[in-house]
């Protein structure tokens, strides 16, 4: 408000001065002191007008705030905002809805998007739960099964020694065929050979209307859905005794080649709504839903018709779909706040527990990327085997298989398994080649934000991307680049420097608690100096977590 006000003052004052300056140039030698006095008087007049405008504008803002109308996203300034003058017209479904139009961001358009159709032929034989997926748990959790044990879907596999109440449950029924160990005997993954017909552990879900919050929490802990909830800040599994300020769910994913969640929830609306009802019981605050306002048509009715939640619409490029960005705009995380976030498919699993009394980890997963013969959606379960999902679908051998998207996913061996929260597998080419003058005249087009490439001239084009770094790591040189793709009131580069310097006060002040790796990932992609921003941010978050 203040800034725009100053511009409004300075511009006319400048124009006036320009007039004065211009008027006097043809007649040198004439006394100029009159003009000087006039100029000062004009400035004084402008300042008076400015004060009046500013006071009335602030009064408007205060009144709007008092009525609670400022949250609606409407403009209560005396002046129209730039955005209002030049923005495209709102589609009809958005009228009267609270909308955040985020201008900053970038969509990395890649080849290999999956068409909206599920290939039912692709099945995974084995599934695995990976302890390392859960941040902050001990690398060697306490096992509750051993190789050869027969488990039902929902039976606990292991728990963390420091939080024995949180059960990590089997996503499918079958036989434990392997407990793979990594370095220092850490448990890498617990592999289950799935039954042909799933056997579910029977649950008696408490009645939402009657049960207390404590009973509900105890049930969620025991049933194995608790780890599907994540807490911000720090992106960790919440402690059972914590109560969140609010719960946030983003109903669209803007990451490159991400699955279309409208398609994913088809036919599962009841479970989703039930999941929302359960979440509503877990917080004294509200459950917020971030909705996709990018299209000409509204998103799935499952989201738009959801009851018992606060809905906010977001329009913009990636990372507009990140829940962290949405939290920042809806109700930011302050020091001491704990909020929970959950993915759409996790909410459905939670809901199914109540609608059908079973731990159903069905996941619709997008297999995408330019190195797949046929990008497609498959219906499988949590932790599916990548080799089974991708069998016969890889174009070459020299590829990188990523569980998740190209910005935040994890590089997996072909024998690996889908990570706990991931609903996407991306396969891209490995980029370990030398390129002759690649920095000056690259041999192929590649995704970039830089206008030194002609990409900005072809807005619809899709690119093949590989894992080459396209340059060497350097110190931070270019400025303003991260801000360009992070739609938050935050200075990422300075935050990174504060983390590297270990300055806690500054880290907290500059908003580290509002960030998670996925929010900063696009900045890392864009970074000219090839700095590992997600890694640095995680260092900082770990330091903060140890402190608190």
């Amino acid at each position, binding site marked *: 408000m203040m*800034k725009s006000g100053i511009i409004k003052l300075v511009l006319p004052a*400048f124009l006036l001065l320009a007039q004065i*300056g211009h008027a*006097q*140039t043809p007649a*040198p030698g004439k006394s*100029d002191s009159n*003009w*000087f006095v006039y100029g000062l008087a004009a400035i004084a007049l402008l300042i008076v007008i400015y004060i009046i405008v500013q006071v009335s504008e602030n009064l408007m803002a205060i009144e709007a705030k008092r009525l609670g109308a400022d949250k609606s996203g409407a403009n209560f300034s005396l002046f129209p905002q730039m955005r209002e003058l030049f923005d495209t017209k709102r589609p009809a479904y958005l009228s009267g809805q609270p909308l955040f139009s985020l201008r900053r961001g970038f969509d990395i358009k890649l080849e290999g998007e999956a068409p909206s159709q599920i290939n039912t032929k692709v099945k995974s034989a084995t599934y695995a739960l990976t302890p390392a997926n859960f941040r902050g748990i001990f690398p060697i959790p306490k096992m509750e099964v051993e190789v050869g044990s027969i488990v039902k879907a929902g039976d606990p596999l292991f728990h963390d020694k420091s939080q024995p109440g949180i059960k990590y449950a089997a996503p499918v029924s079958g036989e434990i065929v392997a407990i793979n160990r990594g370095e220092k005997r850490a448990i890498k993954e617990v592999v289950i050979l799935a039954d042909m017909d799933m056997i579910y552990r029977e649950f008696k879900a408490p009645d939402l209307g009657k049960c207390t919050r404590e009973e509900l929490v105890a049930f969620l802990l025991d049933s194995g859905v608790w780890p599907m909830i994540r807490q911000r800040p720090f992106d960790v599994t919440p402690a059972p005794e914590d109560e969140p300020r609010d719960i946030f769910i983003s109903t669209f994913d803007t990451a490159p080649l991400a699955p279309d969640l409208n398609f994913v929830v088809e036919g599962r609306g009841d479970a989703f709504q039930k999941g929302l009802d359960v979440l509503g019981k877990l917080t004294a605050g509200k459950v917020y839903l971030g909705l996709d306002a990018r299209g000409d048509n509204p998103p799935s009715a499952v989201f738009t018709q959801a009851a018992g939640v606060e809905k906010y619409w977001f329009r913009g490029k990636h990372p507009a779909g990140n829940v962290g960005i949405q939290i920042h705009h809806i109700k*930011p995380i*302050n*020091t001491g706040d704990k909020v929970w976030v959950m993915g759409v498919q996790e909410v459905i699993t939670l809901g199914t527990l109540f609608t059908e009394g079973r731990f159903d980890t069905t996941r619709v997963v997008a297999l995408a990327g330019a190195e797949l013969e046929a990008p497609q959606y498959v219906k499988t379960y949590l932790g599916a085997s990548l080799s089974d999902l991708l069998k016969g679908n890889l174009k070459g051998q020299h590829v*990188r298989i990523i569980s998740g998207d*190209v910005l935040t*996913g994890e590089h997996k061996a072909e024998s690996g398994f889908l990570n706990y929260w991931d609903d996407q597998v991306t396969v*891209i080419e*490995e*980029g370990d080649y*030398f*390129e002759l*003058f*690649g*920095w*000056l005249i*690259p041999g192929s087009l590649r*995704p*970039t*934000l*830089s*206008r*030194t490439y002609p990409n900005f001239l072809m807005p619809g084009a899709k690119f093949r*991307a*590989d*894992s*080459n*770094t*396209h*340059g*060497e790591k*350097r*110190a*931070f*040189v*270019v*400025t*303003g680049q991260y*801000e360009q793709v992070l739609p938050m009131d935050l*200075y990422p*580069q*300075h935050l990174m420097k504060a983390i590297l310097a270990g300055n806690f006060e*500054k880290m907290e*002040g*500059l908003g580290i608690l509002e960030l998670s790796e996925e929010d900063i990932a696009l900045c*890392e992609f*864009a970074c*000219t*100096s*090839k700095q*590992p921003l997600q*890694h640095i941010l995680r260092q900082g978050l770990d330091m903060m977590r140890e402190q608190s």
Partner: protein
Amino acid sequence: MKKALLHFFERIEPDKKKSPLLHTAYDAFFTFAFTPKTVTTDGVHIRDGIDLKRTMVYVVLALQLCYLFGTYNIGYQHFHAIGQYPGLLDGLHLKLVYGLIKILPIFIVTHVVGLGIEFYYASRKGHGVEEGFLVTGALIPLLMPPDIPMWILAFAVAFAVIIGKEAFGGTGMNIVNIALLARVFVFFAYPTYIAGDEVWVSGLEKVNGVYQTAAYGGVYQFFDGIFNAWGWDTFGAGGTAVIDAYTGATPLALGYQGGWEKIVATYSVSDMWWGFIPGSIGETSKPLIILGALFLIGTGIASWRIMVAGVFGVAFTGLLFNAWGMTPFMEVPWHYHFYMGSFLFAIVYMATDPVTASSTNKGKWIYGFFIGVVGMVIRVMNPAYPEGWMLAILLLNVFAPLIDHYVLEANMRRRARRAKAAAQ
């Protein structure tokens, strides 16, 4: 061909342990020819196509027009002083060759000294040669008067690179602009070579109180031989006296002495605009600098905020001076300040150096604006030297972290206030 070249590079790779300096130099040239085959490890799996080399080289590309015109203008000013070849295209070959003979040694010495130091420090620290000197090395020749002695230039470059950059930890760590530091070194250590009325036009000497061209040496004679063979004009022996009423003073020096009237008595507005005036090698031609600026803004390499804010700063201060009007120089119409001196060059290529400028977008507005203000104050009010951008930018370089500090403080305060409001 690519394979053969790769193979060649592999064959000549020196041993890293035995000769680290050689290996560093090899690595610099190798990574210049080939982007390395490194792949992403943790974090993002794909990276933007832009890197620091590309960023830096685009600035160098933007400077090429200034180089072309600078070379020509050295020759043009030289012959203009003695009244020969008054037309722009008359004696073009002589003007260009004259300019080249002046500018090439400057360019070579700058790079040999600067890159030598860069390679040495990179090998000592055991990491690759960073690209910072690409731009610095391209800028320094354009900032110098054409007759700068090579030993002074070498000292200046060495001083700037060692004290200004390597002492702070290399590219990205420096506080002040390296190229300007080189220039300010000359300015304070050897002021007679970079200030005054006699240094901006090349190849003149004072004999018996009259300026005349110095004798053309061996290189010129060599070219004369060639030109003779083709039947073109030649340099001749030298020793031609300058034309009557000749002055080597820059428009600003004239403006300081007698205001706008005195300036236009010597230089036409169009000469100043197109750049046919004496000055540092690269800064005279305004349209070419503006073209370079548009190129940099269009490609997103340089910050348009700083440039726009700088223009506002100059206009604002110029208007104030017009209104004040204490000296004749203050009465020079404010918009003509853009025609004279090196403001445009400085704000486009020097002030926008991302390492030394403000690093926040709000800070950039303040930073650019104050460069405009401070530079104008120095230009107009400083009795000894009527130009201010070098000093203004160096001053604001030092203040940039402070500006950023307050912008960040404001952000932190906003966050704290928000938390307080939420707690109520």
